[in-house]
């Protein structure tokens, strides 16, 4: 009896589920996405609430209290200048996440525009863009980033741009690939046959279906951006002010004392590993949720 009532919902009661909502639901069922998401949310909260969490000023040193091992006063110990490592890591998360998000945003924007131009217009535009992309991809990423930083000078924004430059060709290639695959998709041909053309065809019919892999790649790129930022910092190409709490710079400041004070390298290292792991897990979970091959 109840079955009959349930089987005939009125039109207004039926709720329609879009593919994005559907993908999100899948993601909530994926353990890697949940763990990754939790780690990222944790770091974001730490970054936002840094002033309330950190017990000390991260830039203020107390030479009388340098080299302290982890203890109740200084949870993660202190460094050569006597700065509190815990506070520096907490504030460092702002820098790291900021650089990662900025670089990926810049990279995706430019890469997506280039990829869309190449994949949609084909012809000589495609040839020029894709050959340039090939050239950029032939240069090792870190080397390219170093070159960009040494050209632009040191600084947070410069580091973000350098990492973005490394990512641009990857994003361009991914979007172009998905657009090419879509060009002959029946629903795109159908849209053309109905009279849809130009920007409308790209924006309404092709991009929404091509963007999935790009989103996944962007998430994974956040992970590499964290590593790249740390690497640049480690190489002394991070923010110019030595007091700036950047995880990679913290590593390079301390590796000489590694035998005496393991904690100095250990905690920033753990922070980097966790952030990278979080983005990677989240990216993997998203890939599973969005991948069209798992659909239907």
């Amino acid at each position, binding site marked *: 009896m109840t079955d009959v009532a349930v089987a005939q919902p009125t*039109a207004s009661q*039926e709720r*329609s*589920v*879009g*593919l994005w909502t*559907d993908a999100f639901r899948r993601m909530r069922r994926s353990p890697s996405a949940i763990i990754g998401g939790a780690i990222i949310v944790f770091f974001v909260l730490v970054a936002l609430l840094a002033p309330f969490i950190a017990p000390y000023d991260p830039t203020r040193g107390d030479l009388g209290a340098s080299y302290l091992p982890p203890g109740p006063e200084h949870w993660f110990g202190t460094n050569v200048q006597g700065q509190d490592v815990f506070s520096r890591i907490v504030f460092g998360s702002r820098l790291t996440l900021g650089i990662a998000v900025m670089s990926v945003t810049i990279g995706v924007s430019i890469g997506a525009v280039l990829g869309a131009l190449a994949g949609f217009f084909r012809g000589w535009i495609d040839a020029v863009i894709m050959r340039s992309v090939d050239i950029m991809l032939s240069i090792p990423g870190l080397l390219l980033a170093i070159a960009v930083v040494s050209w632009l000078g040191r600084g947070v924004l410069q580091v973000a741009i350098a990492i973005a430059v490394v990512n641009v060709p990857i994003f361009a290639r991914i979007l172009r690939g998905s657009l090419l695959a879509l060009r002959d*998709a*029946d*629903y795109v*041909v*159908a*849209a*053309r*046959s*109905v*009279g*849809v053309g130009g920007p*409308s065809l790209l924006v*309404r*019919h092709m991009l*929404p*279906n091509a963007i999935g892999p790009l989103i996944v790649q962007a998430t994974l790129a956040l992970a590499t951006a964290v590593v790249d930022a740390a690497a640049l910092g480690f190489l002394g190409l991070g923010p110019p002010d030595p007091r700036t709490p950047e995880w990679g710079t913290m590593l390079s400041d301390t590796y000489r004392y590694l035998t005496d004070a393991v904690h100095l390298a250990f905690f920033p290292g753990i922070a980097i590993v966790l952030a990278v792991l979080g983005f990677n897990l989240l990216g993997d979970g998203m890939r599973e949720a969005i991948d069209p091959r798992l*659909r*239907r």
Partner: protein
Amino acid sequence: MTAVAESEAAERRASEEPRASEEPLLRTEHLRVHFPIMRGLVFERQVGAVRAVDGVSLDVRRGETVGLVGESGCGKSTMARAVIRLVNVTDGEIWFDGQEITAARGEQLQRLRRRMQMIFQDPYASLNPRMTIGSMLAEPLRVHRLARGPEAAKRVRELVEVVGLPRSAVNRYPHEFSGGQRQRAGIARALAVRPDFIAADEAVSALDVSIQAQIINLLAQLQREFNLTYLFIAHDLSVVRHISDRIAVMYLGEVVELSPSRELYDRPLHPYTAALVSAVPIPDPAVELRRRRMILVGDVPSPANPPSGCRFHTRCWLRRELDNPERCVDELPALRELQPGHRVACHFAEELTGTRRRDELITAAAGHSSGRTTAPDEVVTPESVAPEADDGFFAPGGPPGAEPHA
């Protein structure tokens, strides 16, 4: 006054009607669509071409349905996409409603898009997964400025109802529907612009048999309702049969036979058609028992490198029965009108015009073909063939006195 008006109207009808039936809505002249085969990474050069459509002349009259059949890869889908200008034509002409549209672009092409539409084969691939059915149907209205706002919404609801989808479909996404329902949505999209002509590219091939019938009936009903003209493509003769007035059979990019539907089934004049028709099951066990299937040997040759002369000669059973005449290899057969309204491209089609001779040849061919899957020879005795089986040639069996074959 009224009498004058009436007589004028009658005159107009009289003068228009014959013209309307004479001038086909769609006509192609030696249409060719070749896809270049490119080699080389940096400096691309053309090393050949896939001749998907190679010299097809076809006409579709107003309000009629022309079926286009052939094996996969014979160019029928390309043909459909070419006539509604979705792929570029290599050579030849397309005429639509008195206009040459072969190279139409810009404004003219946009106007054409309003009059010619397409229904796609795969209902899973032909609907944008990120768009609701409603916004998909509203799009052509917007693009062609046919309706906007509440009027467009009303039109969308009408479309949804016309094709038999529930009203709630408007706000739903394609993945929430079954294959048959999706195909209905695809049909609704084609109808949105109120076209005159629809190319249905294997519109039912991907559907369950029970759903196929529903969709075919829907198409037939819509044709009556909106006075549509169809080019109906299928690889399955039994599907085309119900809906088509005339049928064109394609083989390797060419039309080999064009005939009124009934006649094509009853008296196919091209050996290829005869083989296709012999594969259609008959819903009558008595006939089915005697039906001879001719299985064509070999694969379809590559359309990039088609055989010389008659393209079918490599697989032709009739040529074998006639001891392999050279003419088939040397000379391209023209599409000739052998009987009124019945055109065929075969040098030896006359062999199949006489009923007795045809049955003889077919029985012999079916006997020779190793793929004979139905009744063994012994079942076919002269007595078992009723005289009325004459026109159903898929119920062969030699005429009295035919040589039993080994």
